[in-house]
């Protein structure tokens, strides 16, 4: 039950766990946090699921929580406050909102697999944008393909914005010379990581890519 669940936030360089409502979290002047959830339930699995669900629900928009660190990757820790039998540590270290200028802060808690997938999406989108611009330029100065190409550019930028600065984008050029097919591949990749509880920016990117797939298919051959 949500009422029985206490959400705690631990500051990684402070030994004591601090118990604040999530709403206050943003106001605290600490640089890095560890977010934890405590749940009481009949069984440990239920407690874990409840805590994770609560944190996902309350934070996914604000913090960009990822399913990538969901139950399968959760580990048990103690709050030391005796409030419950079990506490679930569900995320790694995340930056404060004030550090949002650093692109990709919201995704820093993602595991390497998710980051690599988003990087793959970014590569596909960049290549699709190159091809779409080449098509637009070949058609001529009044080509409506410019709209599609600019949309793909924006999606590629959005994907890059989700990645940490240090993420490497170097890699093989995606195979294929049809922007619609590359977009479809990007959309397939997005499906793998956009599951319940994924960050809203990730879901937004998926929606944008889906829209572009539709546009690419309807404008093909114009």
């Amino acid at each position, binding site marked *: 039950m949500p009422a029985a669940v206490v959400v705690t936030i631990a500051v990684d360089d402070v030994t004591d766990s601090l118990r604040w409502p999530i709403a206050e979290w943003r106001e605290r002047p600490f640089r890095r946090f560890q977010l934890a959830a405590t749940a009481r339930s009949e069984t440990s699995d239920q407690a874990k699921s409840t805590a994770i669900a609560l944190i996902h629900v309350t934070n996914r928009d604000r913090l960009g929580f990822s399913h990538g660190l969901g139950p399968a990757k959760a580990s048990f820790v103690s709050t030391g406050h005796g409030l419950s039998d079990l506490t679930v540590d569900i995320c790694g270290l995340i930056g404060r909102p004030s550090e949002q200028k650093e692109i990709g802060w919201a995704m820093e808690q993602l595991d390497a697999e998710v980051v690599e997938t988003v990087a793959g999406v970014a590569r596909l989108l960049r290549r699709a944008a190159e091809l779409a611009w080449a098509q637009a330029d070949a058609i001529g100065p009044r080509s409506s393909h410019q709209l599609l190409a600019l949309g793909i550019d*924006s999606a590629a930028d959005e994907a890059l914005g989700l990645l940490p600065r240090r993420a490497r984008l170097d890699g093989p050029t995606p195979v294929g010379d049809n922007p619609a097919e590359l977009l479809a591949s990007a959309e397939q990749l997005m499906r793998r990581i956009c599951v319940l509880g994924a960050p809203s920016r990730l879901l937004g990117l998926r929606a944008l890519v889906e829209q572009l797939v539709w546009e690419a298919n309807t404008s093909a051959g114009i």
Partner: protein
Amino acid sequence: MPAYDRRTIGELLADSDALARETLLDATPESAPAMVRSWNQLVASAAHLWSALSSPPDHMSGSDPMERLRVIGEAIARSVRAGHWPGHGPADDHVTEIAENLSRARQLIERHGHSSGPATADVHGQVMHTLYVTGHATAVALGAYVTELQHRLEVDTRRRQPIVERPTALEITEAQGMIARFGGFEQLAAAYMFGQPLPSRDPGLRAAATTTRLQAALAAWEIQAHRSLAARPDSADLVRVARVQALITSTTSIVTEAAATIGQIDRDLFRRLAPTLEANQVAWSRLAKRWGELTSSASRTDSLLVVAASEVRAAIAATATNQSRWATPEQLANRINLANTVKTLHLSIVASVDIAHVARDTAADHPGLTAPARIIGMRAQAEAEIAVEQGETRYEGVTWTTRRQIVANQLIPLPEPARRGLINLTNDVIATTNQAVATATQLDLSNITRTIRSGPELRRGRSVEARQIARPHDPGSRAPRR
């Protein structure tokens, strides 16, 4: 110690307007460089006064007309600070005095409030009119300056004066470029004055113009493009700016053609305008491709620029397309006010004159621009060879990258020849934009358009100007005309 200034807000504004007229009437070639140098001070004072007042009516967030003008003023100041024409030197007394008057008016408003002063709409109108007239005065002075330089160059060449004593072609070109920038500024100021309801004393004569999504998106885009290029531009930012400008140009062509097909504008005029718009679109696209070659996997577009570009794309898609294709003229006529949309898009082309100049300044001067060594090696060498063929000796035998840089494809600063290629492409953009703007002046953009002029016709007599510039409160004349 100067006497205490007892003028009211109304008197300060009236004095500013009178000074602006005086500046126009007395505009001389000699005053042009100083007027350009003082320009940003005036625009900044006007913008501060503007923001001290309440928000102007009928303007959506992101389309503040003064902000559009302010970024142009700042861009001109940056250009001058970077050493471009007219370079450092004295300021103009008249323009400085107007700026001080506007600053004084802002101080009075901040100290005492605005309840007892003139109505806000009146103040906005007066401030904009003052800027408009002063901008026009500067353009007139610049035109006379260019004419004089051209005349001197011709005479000096005929008399075989030493080359060092003659005016340079570069100075003439740069002054002409400045005329185009002030021309764009004037048109934007005039568009605001003409798009606003008349001041409170003349209510109801004009319907308030509501800002459309496209207008708001384009205005926000212009402001953001200036800001992104003024900050720490990446090659990716310049690619995005050029691509969006190309799209705006294409949209302008489509919508203007629809207006011609429906019969809202002259078809012959569109036939003359269409090739200029196409040339402009091609020039922006070429520039985008060249900047695109210089991006690396580490290049990131400014996130705010991405947002502004996305909004332009969405607004254009909603305005002018059907399922990713351009809408037909009939569909456009049913969906939007074609005449207003044509005006909006052409004003955006006018504003792009300044964006193109900023892009050129960035290519010429910005120290932070880098690109992968391999592409720099190729591009710089190709441009250097072209320059050598044209008689440039400085590039002979120069290598632009080291072997180690090539092997690692290291990011290195843009060398001069690579910049030279970008500048040449941007000059094409500027030339084609000016051509499109000049052709479009025959469109009826609220009867207040001006041609980007440079020549003897700019030297007008005092009596002509006195007749043609009207006060903003004069309901009979509606707006300044030429």
